[in-house]
């Protein structure tokens, strides 16, 4: 399930956490489902078990997973606050934007760069403008 990007500069445990979050958002991990055991991840990726343990611990702090002694780590019973399925409007708006950008000749990387800039912008009261721009 996990893939690591060695050269990305993002700490390994954060990559693992991001991938778990993504699986949850996409609905591929259901509440109560067991995450891969630390040993499985270590065998698959040759990554330090402490790193995996740290990722799972941080996810537990965020309330996304729960670890049961001796049994493993499981997705928390209550689903995360927002899944993609619960935001159809946003997803539709984003899909339209991507289509429009592609029509203007943008590649995926350029779109990602724009998204990064947009995410970095101070989050003052400019929500109206941002959503207006995307729509």
């Amino acid at each position, binding site marked *: 399930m996990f893939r*690591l990007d*060695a*050269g990305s*500069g993002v*700490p*390994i*445990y954060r990559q693992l956490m991001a991938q778990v979050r993504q699986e949850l958002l996409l609905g591929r991990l259901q509440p109560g489902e067991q995450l891969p055991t*630390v*040993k499985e991840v*270590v*065998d698959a*990726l*040759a*990554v*330090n*078990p*402490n*790193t995996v343990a*740290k990722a799972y611990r941080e996810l537990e702090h965020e309330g996304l997973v729960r670890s049961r002694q001796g049994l493993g780590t499981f997705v928390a019973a209550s689903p995360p606050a927002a899944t993609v399925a619960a935001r159809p409007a946003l997803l539709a708006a984003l899909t339209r934007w991507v289509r429009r950008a592609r029509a203007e000749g943008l590649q995926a990387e350029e779109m990602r760069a724009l998204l990064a800039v947009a995410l970095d912008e101070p989050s003052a009261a400019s929500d109206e403008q941002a959503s207006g721009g995307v729509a």
Partner: protein
Amino acid sequence: MTAQVLDCVGMGHRYSRRGPWGLRDCTLMVPAGRVVALIGPNGAGKTTLLHLAAGLLPATEGSVRVAGARPARRLERIGFAPQGAPLWPHLRVRDVLGIGAHLNPRWDATLASDRIAKLGIAPRARVSTLSGGQRAQVALTLVLAKRPELLLLDEPLANLDPIARRAFLASMFEACTHSGVAVLFSSHVVAELERICDDLVVLADGRVRLAGDIDRLRRTHRVITGPVGWPTTTATQPATVPNDGSQARGWQVISARQAAGRTTALVRIDTHLLAGPGLDAAEPTFDELVLGYLDQHHPDQEPSQQDLRSQVEAPA
């Protein structure tokens, strides 16, 4: 609270009374279950450090303790794999394992034979007929089957192909999680270390330049890119006073490089950093952290003429 598995305080070594110091003022602690990577160019003192911890060299100054006692008294708890995996050429693989079995009180014969079988190495084969990678595997089996508390590995991955590397790391990690084995291993290849180690020690010219938990180190450093000529000195320098009036503390520039009209510097920060206009700040990658410290110049010692960076292999 258990003692640190490996505890070095101000440890140093020189071979003769007037000779150069192979290692100086090294303070380092490795707790149980942690994997510590020792990175540095050739001649930095990595092997000297490992030999001191393994009890092969006496500490000329300072102290080194393994599980609370001198390494010479804790030999059965230390698994040391020297660089290049030297083994007796005329002996057979099973004889090498036999030496391990007869000299080590806590020998796990099943683990040894299983591992050799899984690696496809014939026990009857003579060591001289093995490839470099196979010899490395036998040497690693020798240290793993000893069931030590501390693994000291001198460039263990050097002769292993990627599959062999993965298999060895799996065994090593299993020892860490099941038995709480502490690992200190040296490497002059930076790539792929990030996913293996918990802590990092950067060694250059016989001194520890950087040591600590990787995540904490990355949080307390920044890579700042700015115009050519900045920073003017590599000394401590006050940060730009931020607009909202809060007092920003100083930062320390570790090293700086110039390329393509820009200057990139690795800095250590005391507190929240505000970089100021014209400068980009980002958390350093693992490689930037290591290489930044290897680039560090020290006026109190003879500056290394060579580009240390070139001696440490990094991904392009």
